[in-house]
């Protein structure tokens, strides 16, 4: 097991080098730069002054020099400062990350309290109308784009409940209750795709467990259905569900950009979009790298846990 972990950790190094290169190069070849944006559509400006401004911001250095400087600083934990505001990129990320973290927790909460019970119910009532309704619902839930659902949710709330406060984000430190209220809807929308996936998965694993010999034995012994389900079926069918839940953390990270944009939440996703728009390349490179590293680490932890749980995987 330790060898496996070491092997995976070593494997990370080339990936992270590749990731940092890809992020940095992509970001810096985006057409247009922050000076273009700073000058906006102002007509009167001096081309010479603009070039000097570029030089002042070190935008005219060769790209490999800029990459090496950047990656050197990154390795020391310094993601640089915003080209626009001078605010350290890391400060900005740390200010915004709690929003994302909360949102993920919220989404996970919905996934667990909606997905697993519905899936179990569908399996238990297989081939009844309950099962069919849940399955069809799951298919639709799976294909509805969550950004569209989010837009519709915003529409409905702003038309019928404009003063309910569910569309108004408040930092947790200012008002915890209003904060949670403001994250309910985004969390629910963000979780939807995963909920439907977990419903289908839970249904399949529970069905699997129901067919196992030990369940038959338990039933033959005359145990009540409730005990059969809670003691034998559900615990045994949850291991694969738990692993997939882990994998879904990564999926949720990907869904954040759109969710934040629609609900106007001040998280890292909007930071990325804003910095693309304003060509604040330090912020953009830093925030994408941050998300990618988190994503890679989450996946690694899931893989290790999986290897731990599933004896067939050995390296």
């Amino acid at each position: 097991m330790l060898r496996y972990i070491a092997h995976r950790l070593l494997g990370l190094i080339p990936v992270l080098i590749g990731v940092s290169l890809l992020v940095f190069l992509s970001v810096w070849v985006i057409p247009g730069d922050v000076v273009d944006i700073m000058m906006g559509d102002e007509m009167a400006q001096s081309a010479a002054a603009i070039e000097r401004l570029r030089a002042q911001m070190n935008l005219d250095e060769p790209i490999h020099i800029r990459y090496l400087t950047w990656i050197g600083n990154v390795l020391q934990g310094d993601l640089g400062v915003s080209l626009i505001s001078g605010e350290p990129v890391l400060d900005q990320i740390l200010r915004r990350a709690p929003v994302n973290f909360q949102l993920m927790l919220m989404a996970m909460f919905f996934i667990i309290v909606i997905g697993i019970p519905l899936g179990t119910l569908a399996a238990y009532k297989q081939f009844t109308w309950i099962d069919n309704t849940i399955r069809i619902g799951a298919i639709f839930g799976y294909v509805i784009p969550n950004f569209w659902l989010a837009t519709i949710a915003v529409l409905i709330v702003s038309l019928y409940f404009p003063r309910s406060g569910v569309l108004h984000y408040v930092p947790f430190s200012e008002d915890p209750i209003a904060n949670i209220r403001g994250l309910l809807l985004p969390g629910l929308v963000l979780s939807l795709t995963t909920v439907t996936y977990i419903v289908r998965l839970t249904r399949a694993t529970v069905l699997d467990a129901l067919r196992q010999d030990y369940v038959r034995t338990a039933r033959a012994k005359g145990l009540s259905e409730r005990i059969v389900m809670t003691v034998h079926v559900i615990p045994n069918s949850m291991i694969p569900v738990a692993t997939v839940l882990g994998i879904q953390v990564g999926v949720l990270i990907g869904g954040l950009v759109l969710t934040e944009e629609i609900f106007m939440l001040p998280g890292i996703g909007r930071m990325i979009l804003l910095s693309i728009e304003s060509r604040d390349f330090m912020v953009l490179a830093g925030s994408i790298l941050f998300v990618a590293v988190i994503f890679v680490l989450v996946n690694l932890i899931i893989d290790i846990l999986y290897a731990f749980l599933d004896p067939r995987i050995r390296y």
Partner: protein
Amino acid sequence: MHDTRTISRTDERPPDAAGSDDAVAETDQVLSPTRLAWKSFRRSKLGLVGSLMVLLLIVIAIGGEQFSPYDAYSMDSSVSLEPPSLAHPAGTDRFGRDQLTRLMEGTRISMLVSFVAVVLSLVIGIPLGLIAGYYGGLAGTVIMRGVDVVFAFPTILLALMLVATLGASLPNLILAIAVIFQANVVRIVRASVMSVKEREFVEAARAVGARDSVIMAQFILPNVLSPVIVQATFHLSLAIFIEAALSFLGLGTQPPTPSWGLMLNESRTFMEFAPWLTIFPGLAIIFAVLGFNLMGDALRDAFDPRLSQR
């Protein structure tokens, strides 16, 4: 969905504790697996429905505006923001353009993006996967590290970054989607190749001195294709989703091209005054994604009969 990882990971090791490697191994028993799968696919009612939906989309994409009395681009300020009516079943936008006609035009964009991107991903991914799986070595390592880098990003984020880099436009969007998908294709192809290449019939062919290219074309490729086809079908729906999502963010298809995501983006300004502009493009996306997904589900069940019993 909405992230290639869901699909790929479950394909690699489905949570019901049956690796797809075994699945591939099982499908080429006795009779031609492809024919068996086809039989099973035809029996699936949902698969049929899905295929019909996709067919309808293709017809609309090809026929396009011919089905409509309006032009998707010409503006008429006298009917700005009209709610759905007989004359305009899906209403009009702020410039008085008929939304149904624009949705039909958008179908063309969605179909174009998804099919071209998927074909491109196969063209890149299959050879790379074959090389990585069959030869391994340095080339294989390099390929797989590249794939790992692609997998180090959430799909939407990578697409967003690539499109921003290349410049937001339809061809660049297609390219970005293809780059992301090919990583998935490479993984699947490689896994299948590795499981097939040690089998007796390949060993036998090698023993009688068949060239690598012949072995690959005759023995390995056919066995690799079924999981790839299933994956490609899911990619088709995922491509529609990515196109819509990026266009929605303003980083995909550029106006004046009426793509569904772009129409959603433009609808936001008037959302409260003209909700039909928000509702219909979403329904179009759902329709297309559902069609491809039903088709994909049926295909997967057909190629892997054990799953369909559930």
